[in-house]
Structures are given as C-alpha cells and as structure tokens.
C-alpha cells in the first residue's frame, strides 16, 4: 500500500534543512529526546520502543526494541551505542541521505538510544569518503551540544551523553557489526566470533548495542507519535513490522532515489509509482529487492505459499511485485528485504553479467578470514569470468552451485550467505542464460548491465 510520509524526510528539501533551527521548527526536533530523558525511566523507554516494531534497517531486520532489551548493566564496564553508517551494500543509498540532510534525527536518536541502554557515548561509524555526511553529523553534534541537548546534562538531566563520528576506511566487511567494532578499536576489520554478542562484549569489550543509522534515526519519530501509533502506520503491523522507513530504488528506473513511506509498500509501487517506471518504458526484467546480498526476483515470479500458516499465504498465486516489502514476507519468498533499497533491471539486462558483477564485488570484499568465503568467493568469480570470456565448460557451470553450497552456512559471518544466496538465486532463476554462455550462444562482449540514457557498459 503506497502511503508516502515525511517524518524523517520533511527537512530534506528545505534550505538549511540540516540545521538545528529547521529541525526544531519543522520536525518537532528534540521533543522526543526531551520527553524521554525528563519523564521516562530507561526500562520504560525500552518497553515503549519494543512497541514501535522497528525492524533493524541494516539488513537483518532484527527488532530494535528487543535488541535494546539485551543490554544488562555491567558491574565495572561502561556501555556503548554504536551506529552503523557504513552502508557498503551495493544498491544501498539511504543512510547517506539521512546523514547529509537530516543529521539531527540521527543525533536525537542516539540520545534516546544511549539513555535506553545505559550508555553515555555513541559512536557513529561512517566511511571516509562520505565527507559531507561526516561534516553534517559533526555540525549537528556541535549545535546540539551548544543547546545543552548533548553533554553533561542533556535537557537538564543528570545523564551525560556524548556522540562521536568515527571514520572508517571504507570496506564492505566493516559494515558487519563485529568487524565494525574491531575497526572502531583500531584493529583489522575482521568479524568476530559470536558468542559473545555485542550486548555481552562489544566495543572495547564492553556491552554494546549496534544499530543501523536509519534504525536510530526513526526513534525520535516513534516517540513523538507514540510507539504503538508509529507501528500502526504500517500495513503489516500485525507481522511485527511497523512504522515508516526509507525505500530506495535504483537501476533502470526514471526516478531513482529514496522515498519515505509507511511499511507495506510493494515493489510494484516502488518501481512504478515512486521510481517513475522503467527507463524508456522498457519491460521489467528482474529486481534485487534489498541490496546485492538479497536473491534476485524475476518480473514474472509468483508467490507460492499454499500453507495457510505462512505469512505470505494472503498473496499466494500473486505476483511477487505485489507483496508488501517486509522482513518476514520477503524472507518467505526465498529472498530478503535486506536494506530495502531495490535495484531494478530492465529487459535486455544480462543476468550472467549481473552475476559476474556481483561476484567481482564479493571476491574483492571478503575479509579472507575463513576458508569457505575466502576461497569460495574467488572461485565463484573465476567461473563467472570464464562465462563472460566464453571459456566456461558445462562441468564448470555445474560446479557453481556446489561452490555456493559449500560457502552457505559454513562461515564465520553472514558475508558467506550474502555471497552464496545471490549466487544461487541467479543460478536458479537464469540457468538457461548461463547455459547459453557455455554453448557460445551468448557472449560477454554483448552483455549489457545498463540501458537507455546511461548508454552501454
């Protein structure tokens, strides 16, 4: 259901929209934080936050309030809030808009988050190349501090809160939360083993909550509306997937961008109503629903959920494009909602070239710590390259799924699945096209990734 909102994005287009003055004037800026710090206990905040049904916006979709409730005071160690603004997933471009255009929502969310989980410091981890994002966040922090919203006594409350922006060097794997923590500590960005989970031993060995930047930026809105009211904005509130979120659309659409809507929007609405339809009004070929790790959907795919207990049953037999973009709905479709930024591909796009493009990325970004991902990602790319070169044999094509199967579930972090799932997705859905490359019916030099106004590649 298409319901555009502007809780998070109201200040996006405004002149000086990123300043404290605009935020307070237009978006009830810092009212939520003031209310939370001056009238609620941390336990109340966590309980209230659970009702908002904010599913983590970083990709895994874990309920934010539940994650906050994992934090337990440690007898000697401080707690930390760490905000994941690494946003390295290909096809994902939403967190950056918040940092650049509404940085105060991020800072206000940090104040509430810190208070809820018992932390006095929040680190926002931003990749180095996002210079404007960092400058806007630091600017917002400075303004909030000058007003007394941050610092020793925010809103007069004896509960010190500081927010820092931490620069990362820009590696996809540093978006994985434990790898991010290592990087934050100045170590090599390699994921850690779990357990212990960050809530037990996170940043500097202290209890830590890691939230995605959009997750935390949605918090002020939820508390301004009342968390339950916020959740009910969603048409799949009953699936514990609430509120509003940023929907991104990119690829072969006329109006790529980031749109704020109530949860419950469908891919069709995102592509055609918000994204303005496909370039040159071409037909839709396929769509990667939420970042490169989420398996691809074909335009003609339909939902198969005959089981009445399935959360998808209501859409049984319908096009996948008409299913609300939700964490559980998409998981049950054999893909994932991921970061909720869809990459759209028009007719004429070559799926084998897409596969090759993705495998290049994963081969390049694997941290190399664990065997299946280190070697498997390289092998997948090698075969993809041979496909594109026209030198891949049928045996090698038939090896591809074996390689992906061998990565799946056998790695330290979810990067492994993030590589294997899209690989298997492309194989399952486009086997004929892969075979065409082996038989020489298709050639890498003719393969297209881009269409229309963007020319060829």
């Amino acid at each position, binding site marked *: 259901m298409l319901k555009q909102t502007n809780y998070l994005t109201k200040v996006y287009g405004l002149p000086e929209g990123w300043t404290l003055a605009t935020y307070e004037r237009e978006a009830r800026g810092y009212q939520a934080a003031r209310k939370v710090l001056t009238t609620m206990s941390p336990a109340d905040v966590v309980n209230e936050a659970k009702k908002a049904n904010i599913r983590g916006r970083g990709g895994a979709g874990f309920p934010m309030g539940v994650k906050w409730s994992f934090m337990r005071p440690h007898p000697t160690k401080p707690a930390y809030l760490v905000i994941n603004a690494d946003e390295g997933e290909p096809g994902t471009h939403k967190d950056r808009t918040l940092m650049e255009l509404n940085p105060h929502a991020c800072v206000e969310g940090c104040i509430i988050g810190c208070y809820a989980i018992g932390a006095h410091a929040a680190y926002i981890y931003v990749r180095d190349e996002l210079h404007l994002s960092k400058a806007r966040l630091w600017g917002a922090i400075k303004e909030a501090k000058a007003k007394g919203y941050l610092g020793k006594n925010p809103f007069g409350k004896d509960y010190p809160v500081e927010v820092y922006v931490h620069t990362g060097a820009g590696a996809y794997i540093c978006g994985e939360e434990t790898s991010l923590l290592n990087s934050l500590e100045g170590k090599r960005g390699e994921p850690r*083993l779990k357990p212990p989970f960050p809530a037990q031993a996170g940043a500097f060995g202290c209890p830590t909550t890691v939230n995605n930047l959009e997750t935390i930026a949605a918090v002020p809105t939820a508390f301004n509306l009342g968390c339950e009211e916020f959740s009910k904005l969603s048409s799949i509130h009953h699936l514990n997937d609430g509120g509003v979120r940023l929907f991104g659309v990119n690829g072969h659409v006329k109006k790529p961008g980031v749109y704020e809507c109530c949860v419950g929007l469908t891919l069709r609405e995102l592509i055609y109503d918000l994204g303005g339809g496909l370039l040159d009004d071409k037909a839709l070929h396929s769509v990667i629903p939420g970042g490169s790790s989420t398996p691809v959907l074909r335009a003609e795919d339909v939902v198969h959920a005959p089981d009445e207990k399935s959360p998808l049953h209501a859409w049984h037999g319908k096009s996948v494009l008409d299913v609300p973009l939700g964490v559980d709905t998409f998981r049950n479709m054999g893909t994932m909602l991921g970061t909720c930024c869809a990459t759209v591909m028009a007719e004429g796009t070559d799926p084998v070239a897409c596969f090759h493009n993705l495998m290049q990325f994963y081969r390049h970004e694997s941290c*190399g710590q664990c*065997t299946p991902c280190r070697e498997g990602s390289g092998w997948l790319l090698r075969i993809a390259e041979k496909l594109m070169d026209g030198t891949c044999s049928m045996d090698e094509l038939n090896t591809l799924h*074996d390689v992906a199967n*061998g990565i799946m579930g056998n790695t330290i972090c979810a990067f492994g699945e993030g590589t294997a799932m899209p690989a298997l997705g492309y194989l399952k859905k486009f086997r004929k096209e892969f075979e065409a490359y082996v038989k020489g019916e298709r050639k890498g030099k003719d393969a297209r990734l881009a269409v229309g106004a963007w020319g060829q590649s």
Partner: protein
Amino acid sequence: MPTFKLDGKEIPFEPGDSIIRAAARQGIEIPHYCYHPGLSVPANCRMCLVEVKPAANQRAMMLDIVEWDAALGDYRPVQKPKLQPSCQLPAVEGQEVLSDTSKHVLEARADVQEFLLLNHPVDCPICDQAGECKLQDYWLDHQKTQKRMRDEPVHKPKAVVFGPTIVYDAERCVMCTRCIRFMDEVAKDPVLDMRERGNLNEVFVAPGRQLEGHYTFMTEHVCPVGALTTKDFRFKARVWFLRSAKSVCQGCATGCNAHLDYDPRYNKAYRYRPRDNEAVNKYWMCDGGMLSYRAAHVGRVTAAKVKNKKVANDAAVAEITKRLSDAPSDGIAFVLSAQHSLEDNWALRELARLAQGGKKDLRVYVTGAGPGYKDDILIDEDKNPNTAGVVELFPTLRPFPQLIDEIRAGKVSHVVALGGVTPRNDPEDATALAMVSTLIVVAAHEGALTEAAHVVLPATSWAEHSGTYVNRQSLRQRSDKALEPQGASRPAWEQLRAIAVALGLEPTWTKLKDIRAQLAPTSAEPQAAPVGVPQGKPSVAPPTAP
C-alpha cells in the same frame, strides 16, 4: 563428570571444554587446522564443523541450497542444517553431536579441503612438511576427489625470509593464524599479522621488524602445513625416513619434553620437536632448545685420550688404575655433573663411596654449565638439565669454585670428574686444574675439564642412552635412547664401572636396571606432575597435532 554424545558415544567433559577438546581427551580427532590446544580459538579454518542435534523442543536451523537434477534439467531446492565449529562450541550436558556420522559434516569437510587446495601450489615434493602435512593427511581422509579448478592458481610470495630462522611461503599458507597467535599469546611479541584481504591474504612481519627472539621455531612447529619452514631443517631430510625418540631437552633446568627425530640409517639426529606435557612445557620449546639436538654430534668426546693422545678405552682404564693407585685416600675429589643423567651421577657417587671405603666425609663437588638468559615463559637461567638430580643424590655438594680453591690450597691432588664443561670461562681455572697431579674425566662433551684432563673416557650423550633427569620442578623425567653410541663412547655409568673394576672394587651395578633399582625413589616419580601444577590435564593434543 557430565557427558555429551559424539556419534552416539558418551564423551565426558570438564566445564569449559569445547567439543573438539573433550573429544581429543578421549582420543577422538575431529579434523582441524586452526585449533591448537595451547592457543586461542579463531574458528577460521572451518574444518572442524559438526552437526548439533536440536534439543527436543527446538528445531534445527536449516539453510536453503540446491542440487542439480540432471534428469529434470534444473536445480532442485534442498536444505542442510547449519553446522557449528567444534573448536568454538562448548560441550553441554546431554547434547547430541554428530561428526563422522553426519553426511552434512562429511560434505562440509570435503568442501573445506577442496577450498584449501584450490589455490595451493601442490609442491609437495619440494616441501619439508611433506609426510606430516595436514593438507595431505586430510585430503586422503576427507576429500579424495580430483582438482576441479584447472586454471592457474593465485600466486603469492614464496620463500619470504621472515628472520634469521624462518622462511614463509604464502602460497602454501592456509591462513589459520596459528603462527600469529603463537607470537602474540605465548611469545608475547605480536610481530606477525595478516595483510591484504580475501584470497590475497598473507602473513607478514611487522614493518621494521624481523621474526626473531627466543621462540621463532615454534611458529614453524604450530604451522599445520608447509608454509613456515626453519632454515635449519629446510631441504635436509624426508620425514618418513626419520624415527623419533622421546627425549628431554638438555638446554636448561626446565627440562622440556621433546621428540628427538633421527635417521637410523646415518645414526644422525635431525631436529627436535616439542612433546606435549601440560605440566612442564605445555606444547612449546625455545629456539635454543630446538637447536640443541645438534649437541648429539657437535663438541662430542668419542675417543679415549691419555694426555691428549687418542687411545683405546682399555689403555685409558689401565692408565687410570696406575694414576689412582697411589692417590692419598682423602685426596681424591669426585665431581658430579649437572649435565649428565641421574644414573651417570649415581655411578660416580657409588664409585666415590667404594673408593673411599665408606668414609663419611667424601669430597664431592659439582660441575655443569654456568647460568644464562632466562624468561618467564620457559627458559631457566640454570643451563643444566639435571641440577636438581645431583643435589638429590648428594645434598652436601660443594660448588665448583670451591674445588678450584681447594686445589690451589693443595688439599686436592686427584680428581675424578663427570662431564666436560665448567660453570665459568675463567683462565685461572685452567691454571688451577693444571696443578692437580691426576685429572680423570668421563664425558660426553668437550669442555675445560676434558682439555685439562690427563685421562678422558668417552661417554655417550643423552641422545645415545636412556637417562633420567630431574628438572627445576623436581620432576624426574626419562629421556629415551635415539642413536647408537658414537665412536668409542659408552654410557658414563658403564665407563665408571670399568674404572671400579680396574681399581679392584666391587661395583654394585652391572646394568642400567641395577642402578634404577637402587636409585632412591623420591616424592616425584618419573613423568608425574609436581605439586602445584594442575593435575588431570595430560596432553590434550590429538596424536597428530600440531
């Protein structure tokens, strides 16, 4: 003791045990590369994956994968359970774990094996690790398929000199980080780390540094493959021709347990490797100790000498008889050696007793190597393997400098000594030793004493006989015979017996077992854990580890 089930078999475990550790205690090996019982757990190789049966009220976490259905001409969706690394997974009472009996586990092992060999140069013929390499062993045990990737593998730096002792081959490296963790956690010198990413990863030495210090050999030892080699052992031997003897390092009073690897065809020692002993050296040895196998061949006394002229053993014994026959009964000094075994020293003490007719106040001294470098990891400042042993045999030992003083004072004219070395390198000592009328030395190694001796009898080194050494923890440790006696050398206790017989005394020992029977048992028996060291933790390394 709580238990869990591994492939249907009850496995007892101690609180805090991982599955792999508890299984290893029962002699069951779960294949692994990165896990090492003495190091932290990175769980990065993924070779040790096991399947854990979900508890009664839980469902297994399943993963969606596909199979190729040739008849159908399409992929078929299938599921597999999420496996767990047994090196990381804590043992839980009643838990059911599948290792060798799970199809999924066997598949995962074969996959990991195939991944590890994907870009491996397979240069086994020119690799020193061949024959004791986990990649080779596990290929046979867990993979047994041909290479499917027929393209040029990824190339990386080879024969990188890490420092004075170690050479690295990045192409053979399985990135298990054992070497990195060893330097960080045990040697306390985090000089190694990983650089690059993905399948370009390689181990490197911190810029401006070398891999150096007292524990570099251990990096090679913990390396499960041939990526790290020691300059010392490189291209020297094929391990399958080597035999091993359970040995005890002679480098210092720590008495690290070791395997002495030797080639019986050439009667030659090739290297030392640590022998796991939780109570003494855990899994480690120091560099000095690792190289000390050379002492089996270097600086040895292998022929009898009279006044520096080589003679047959018999002739030397005859000379000894002649020289000792006119010795004043209280003028003979006997010098035990902290470098020699308990048995050798016992024989000399017996000879002293017999020669001096049960006189109470025997002149018994001690020699050995002088003190040196020490640390709080393994290395002891006492550079003798058996100081505690000689003190146990003769608690009122007089130190070596006193011998020198008493020679100068004219109180000592005849000396019978064990071992060649003296604790200090003092020219005055040589002058003093030159003053005695008779100096008889039974020794395995050359030193100031053999140099000054009138008569030398060659003794076998620790490598050529079975001997007992008492380390700094008062632990009696047996070191087995590896090599055959070199030259005319005989065990010192045998040579001392020959002297006793020649002197007309009646030795109370003929064989080694006679000595062992008479060696007073002590509170610490051979190989027992001493007081204060946690018991019940024998070697937890599987027999093939590391």
